[in-house]
């Protein structure tokens, strides 16, 4: 088990319903001897003003246009796309809906973190509303993700809504709604509570678990657990996610509780 020095939390335009300070407080309770620091916007924290355009261009160029085609570094962003990313970096908009290559996005965040803080002893967690996906070589397509553990870890408040699958019945009804031109928000209301939605009041509670996945990634090299009731369970369905993060009778399985106890004894 690795020693952890500090946890840093960033806000890359995450959903307004997300209370990062509450997550920081939660982590401080779980990781008694590890400092937790809230740093705000990662670009505002590290990036010099004259680099904003440069990074806006880089982020605009990692958009995924077609989920069945792997991102290519030859993609040239349009002026309007760069301007949009500038607004995102400067915190002037939180309008999300663009899909990014997750590994490339993580690489760009990695670039702005100073070398002296790039270590597994430091847990960098970026909460973002950007939706990102990773390429699956076998299926030859992108898959949307909730989180990507690395340096930094990125957790998407859009990904937590879109990536884990909603109940099957939702998709069957949605198909009918789309054909009939009916309002999809009406459909959502009839499945209210069955999945985490945008600006969901349960979002902060759910994100605590994903933050702990990032912590365990640094701690033991594996962010996940097979136990469906453990917060570290890698949910692929909304039902599983809600159970693991909210409804389960316990937060962590015995094994992961032991790790935390050992960490707090250091």
């Amino acid at each position: 088990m690795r020693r952890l020095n500090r946890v840093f939390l960033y806000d890359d335009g995450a959903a307004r319903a997300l209370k990062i300070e509450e997550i920081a407080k939660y982590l401080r309770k779980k990781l008694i001897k590890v400092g937790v620091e809230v740093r705000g916007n990662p670009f505002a924290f590290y990036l010099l003003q004259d680099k904003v355009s440069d990074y806006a261009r880089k982020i605009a160029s990692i958009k995924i246009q077609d989920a069945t085609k792997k991102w290519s570094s030859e993609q040239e962003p349009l002026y309007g796309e760069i301007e949009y990313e500038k607004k995102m970096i400067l915190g002037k908009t939180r309008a999300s809906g663009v899909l990014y290559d997750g590994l490339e996005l993580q690489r760009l965040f990695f670039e702005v973190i100073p070398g002296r803080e790039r270590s597994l002893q430091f847990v960098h967690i970026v909460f973002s509303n950007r939706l990102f996906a990773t390429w699956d070589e076998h299926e030859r397509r992108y898959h949307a993700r909730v989180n990507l553990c690395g340096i930094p870890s990125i957790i998407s408040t859009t990904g937590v809504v879109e990536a884990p699958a909603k109940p099957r019945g939702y998709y069957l009804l949605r198909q009918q709604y789309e054909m009939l031109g009916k309002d999809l928000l009406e459909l959502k209301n009839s499945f209210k509570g069955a999945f985490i939605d945008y600006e969901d009041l349960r979002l902060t509670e759910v994100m605590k678990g994903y933050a702990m996945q990032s912590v365990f990634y640094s701690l033991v090299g594996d962010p996940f657990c097979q136990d469906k009731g453990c917060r570290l369970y890698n949910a692929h369905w909304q039902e599983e996610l809600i159970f693991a993060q909210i409804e389960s009778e316990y937060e962590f399985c015995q094994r992961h509780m032991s790790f935390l106890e050992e960490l707090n004894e250091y």
Partner: protein
Amino acid sequence: MNKVTIRHPGERILDELGIPYKKVNQGLFVADGPHACSKLIASACDSGVKFANMTVFDDLVLREGGRVAGVVINWTPVSAMPREITCVDPVALESELVIDATGHDAQVVKKLEERGFIKTKGFGAMWVERSEDLIIEHTGEVHPGLIITGMAVATTYGLPRMGPTFGAMLLSGEVGAQIALEKLRGNAKIK
């Protein structure tokens, strides 16, 4: 459609133009399509817009560096005539700015693409919750002299669609107009 839906905050435009509407749900409103459209057209005319009815967009007017400086149009009936006798000179309209509000077709942007000045991404899949905000945020100048609004924005940048709801169209148009005014003021053409 006889009815049009508008999501919040698009109802502000309906209020400004005196278009009657009803609330369906929290954040969702519905208006009569013909009434809304006629008020929009009337408001545009009252503001000084001149409509060139029965015309088609034919080509762009380009200046140095590929700057868009107007459009070339022709009368729609000309396109219905036999090709051998459609040697009717088109009409060039020069302007400081062109606004492409041609919807999914993004006709003006596509013409620019034909000439190799830009590469459009094609509109994306439907994503009701995210699409409208994205369209508004991406509204603006896509190429010197060319502003895009509405669904032309989606086609240009490959953004998701929102389905049959029109709030973002109204707001995107407003943003496009504001950007146009700023540019024209910047060029000291209007006070």
